[in-house]
């Protein structure tokens, strides 16, 4: 049958020695192992060291016992009220965000409403517009005396009572709901688009009405997505600083995040222990939310299969009603983007606040004035650019290695450790990271407080999971066979990475970079805790200018800030996005 070579005789000892020698040589030859080990250690330091200090600060610092912490918390002025307001704001924001976004997602994904492409873009605008700028614009619009809406209303009706007052819990809820509805839109629209129409057909054939089909088929199928969206809204509503800071704080309304800022960190002397306890509370709430999500998603995966056979969902023909849906989309656009930007443009170019916006009343003086008003403006723009460009780049390099290990490593332990570590920051929202870093880097051995580094570390830590998710998603699409095919053709490991893997995941890495860049540019809820004079970012500068009440300068800087962000994204897309063909 076959000729068989006699086995080569070697003693077991020398064989195993040779084996270990070979393994050791491989370890030394493979530089990727050093990269992996280095990144793992760096990640552990980045995340676990501040976390240790956060918990240490909460529960064990100094002589402080648990009883003493409770006593301190009790003595804090207005804490129960702030907790109540936080719950109230979240309870209001959640349904409002869904009420804004669900119709819009349905309109964009499942109806024949005209201008759908445009609608889709406008629905993403609040995502691109930082909440900070939305909050500033809405304070300019809805302030009880000077607010644009009230000024116009007074002129039209002659009443002196304000029509709207944005500095209320209702105002905070309205603006939060408006800006967080983007998250709902993105998540739900994706599911609605992928949903196989045969599920609905089956329901109709079984004799169910449209209403019953929506209730018994469409909603249950989109439930995991609805839950994910809800959790994103919940987490962001807790951690957001800009909206409750600008619209709530002047009226004495605090959420936990703004409470930590006003009553613990910028209080003199700072109450770092209290800050740590409250930050831990936020972290626990966030962690519980994500755990629930993970549980539900794991359980529902079996029927989340929305079918991948490329069947397009059917679009509902609306007839004349499609102009009603178009009007809805237009109103959404008007309130989230149109009106806020109009008032910013007005503020930026009007000679005096309150004048009619006619040509004679316009001026460029505000633009020049903004730069002369304070050195913080220029410095802030510089710092923001350094932090966002540098931070997104460093984080992208990290996520490339982390993603590669998570998806491709054959050492499951290592992949698991990377996955776990890089997921932790999801539960650390802005104020949590900020308080943890304050504790960790205000003292030796790492005295980074008072430098830009502490902001950079905060940004990289906070947005790392975003990048990891984008990169792992695109890595998972590249099957091992594609890399194996390169090896068979004679490509070394490096050549295979360069010629096959990297080009295929480049769009993912780029998307991750852009997401992290834009997030870092607008970051406020950690920066506001961590900046020191000289290290302000643009977001901090905007907040300070707003506090000083110089509306024209705030408007100019806000517009400039958005313009710069968009221009950089376009340049990066141009430079690195070419050749990223949609080949999947």
């Amino acid at each position: 049958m076959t000729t068989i070579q006699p086995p080569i005789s070697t003693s077991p000892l020398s064989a195993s020695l040779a084996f270990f020698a070979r393994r050791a040589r491989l370890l030394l030859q493979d530089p990727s192992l050093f990269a992996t080990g280095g990144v793992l250690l760096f990640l552990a330091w980045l995340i676990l060291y501040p976390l240790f200090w956060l918990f240490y600060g909460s529960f064990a610092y100094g002589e402080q016992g648990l009883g003493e912490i409770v006593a301190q918390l009790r003595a804090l002025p207005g804490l129960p009220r702030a907790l109540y307001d936080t719950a109230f704001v979240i309870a209001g924001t959640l349904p409002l965000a869904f009420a804004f976004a669900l119709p819009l997602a349905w309109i964009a994904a499942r109806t024949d409403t005209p201008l759908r492409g445009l609608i889709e873009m406008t629905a993403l605008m609040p995502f691109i517009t930082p909440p900070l700028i939305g909050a500033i614009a809405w304070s300019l619009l809805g302030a009880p005396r000077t607010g644009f809406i009230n000024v116009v209303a007074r002129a039209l009706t002659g009443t002196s009572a304000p029509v709207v007052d944005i500095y209320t819990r209702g105002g905070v809820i309205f603006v939060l709901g408006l800006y967080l509805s983007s998250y709902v839109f993105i998540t739900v629209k994706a599911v609605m688009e992928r949903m196989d129409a045969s599920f609905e057909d089956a329901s109709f054939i079984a004799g169910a009405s449209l209403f019953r089909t929506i209730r018994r088929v469409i909603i249950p199928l989109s439930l995991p997505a609805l839950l994910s969206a809800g959790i994103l809204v919940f987490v962001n509503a807790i951690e957001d600083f800009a909206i409750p800071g600008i619209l709530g704080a002047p009226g004495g309304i605090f959420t936990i995040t703004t409470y930590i800022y006003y009553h613990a960190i910028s209080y003199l002397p700072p109450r770092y222990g209290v800050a740590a306890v409250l930050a831990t509370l936020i972290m626990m709430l966030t962690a519980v939310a994500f755990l629930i999500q993970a549980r539900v998603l794991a359980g529902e995966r079996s029927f989340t299969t929305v079918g991948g056979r490329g069947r397009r969902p059917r679009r509902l023909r609306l007839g004349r009603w499609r102009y009603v849906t178009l009007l809805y989309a237009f109103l959404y656009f008007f309130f989230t983007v149109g009106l806020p930007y109009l008032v910013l443009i007005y503020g930026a170019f009007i000679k005096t606040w309150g004048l009619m916006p006619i040509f004679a009343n316009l001026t460029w003086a505000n633009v020049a004035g903004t730069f002369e008003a304070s050195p913080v403006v220029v410095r802030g723009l510089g710092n923001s650019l350094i932090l966002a460009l540098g931070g997104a780049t460093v984080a992208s390099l990290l996520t490339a290695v982390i993603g590669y290990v998570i998806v491709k490593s054959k050492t499951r332990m290592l992949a698991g450790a990377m996955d776990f570590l890089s997921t932790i920051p999801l539960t650390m929202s802005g104020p949590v990271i900020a308080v943890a870093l304050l504790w960790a880097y205000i003292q030796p051995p790492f005295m980074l407080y008072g430098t830009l580094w502490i902001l950079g570390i905060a940004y990289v830590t906070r947005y790392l999971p975003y990048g990891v998710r984008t990169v792992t998603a695109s890595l998972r699409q590249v099957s091992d066979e594609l890399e194996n095919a390169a090896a068979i053709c004679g490509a070394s490991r490096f050549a295979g990475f360069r010629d096959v893997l990297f080009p295929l995941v480049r769009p993912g890495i780029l998307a991750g970079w852009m997401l992290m860049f834009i997030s870092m540019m607008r970051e406020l809820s950690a920066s506001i805790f961590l900046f020191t004079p000289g290290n302000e970012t643009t977001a901090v500068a905007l907040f300070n200018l707003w506090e000083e009440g110089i509306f024209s300068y705030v408007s100019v800087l806000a517009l400039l800030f958005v313009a710069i962000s968009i221009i950089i994204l376009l340049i990066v897309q141009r430079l690195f996005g070419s050749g990223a063909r949609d080949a999947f």
Partner: protein
Amino acid sequence: MPSVRLNGLRKSFGRLVAVQDVSVEFEEGALTSVLGPSGCGKTTTLNLIAGFAEPDCGAIYFGDRAIADPARGIAVPPNRRNLGMVFQSYALWPHLTVGENVAYGLKMRRISRAERDSAVKEALRIVQLESYVERYPHELSGGQQQRVAFARALAYSPAILLFDEPLSNLDAHLREEMRFEIKEIHRRIGITAIYVTHDQAEAMTLSDRIVVIEAGRIRQVGTPRELYEQPAGVFVASFIGKTNLLPAQLLEGRDGWGVVRLDGQSDVLRCRCSVDASDNSRGYLSIRPEGIRLQPLAESSGEERFTSRICASTYLGNLNEYRVAWNMDTVLDVQQAGGEELKVGELVALEIDPKRACFLIEDPVGTPPSMS
């Protein structure tokens, strides 16, 4: 053009032993299939040859050159083994054109541009896709992608060609067409080729020789004819083609022929048997469906014929397929070409061709027989 020799290979994943004691030689210039049910270890064997996995022990030789031998610390990486491979998913690089895909192996070998271009052209000519150089893989049909994958593996004239179930993603019609095409191309270039498949029909049409693997072990190596006519055991008999397996005892065996008695029956039958089956050993009689002849009782004559009754009948155009009951409790599947269709319930004379019947002792490792 070297042969590929596996010597006592073993590979386990945790506690699961995927491949053990695999020793076989893939002859140079021949197309040899590795055939087995899914999960039998055939893909692992191919991965060991390709270098995507390292054996726990044992050695792999290309010609006289050892390319994997953990005992001596030899593990040539896949990119230095000079292989061509056609993957199950085709594994065409979606960001490269057809031409760039095919040229990649040549580029890695630092072949000059002019030579590269002509080699790419030649490879695409072989698979009849010359005019598709500028296209992207996603613009091609499944069958065309398959051909590009084939051209990519051929372009740089590797020493050995590996196929990992390359046709399993194609529809039945295309699959049959590609079988003949692969066979024809192989005949022309005469490269040492190893073809992994779970489809016995595919292995039969394509291969010079077939290696049958089951549960990580080699069951038999031979030409398609040898496997079909002289299966080494119950597994091979039932996996290659259809067969009837009946418990039986070998009364006497000599020179590859024997006399058996089926359990619970008094009649004796002549059949093939393996040389090493000892007299009075117990085993199975494997009778191929086309090795049984049925005739209306009235027309029959001859010695070795038995009376039986038709239970079911299926008309397949070129064949009639019957299920017959023989001696009450023995049921046989029979295929008969042409002739008049026999009616269900009819009594017929049953005659067994000794050349199509084979006495098998149970498989060496003792896997339970599975009927196909």
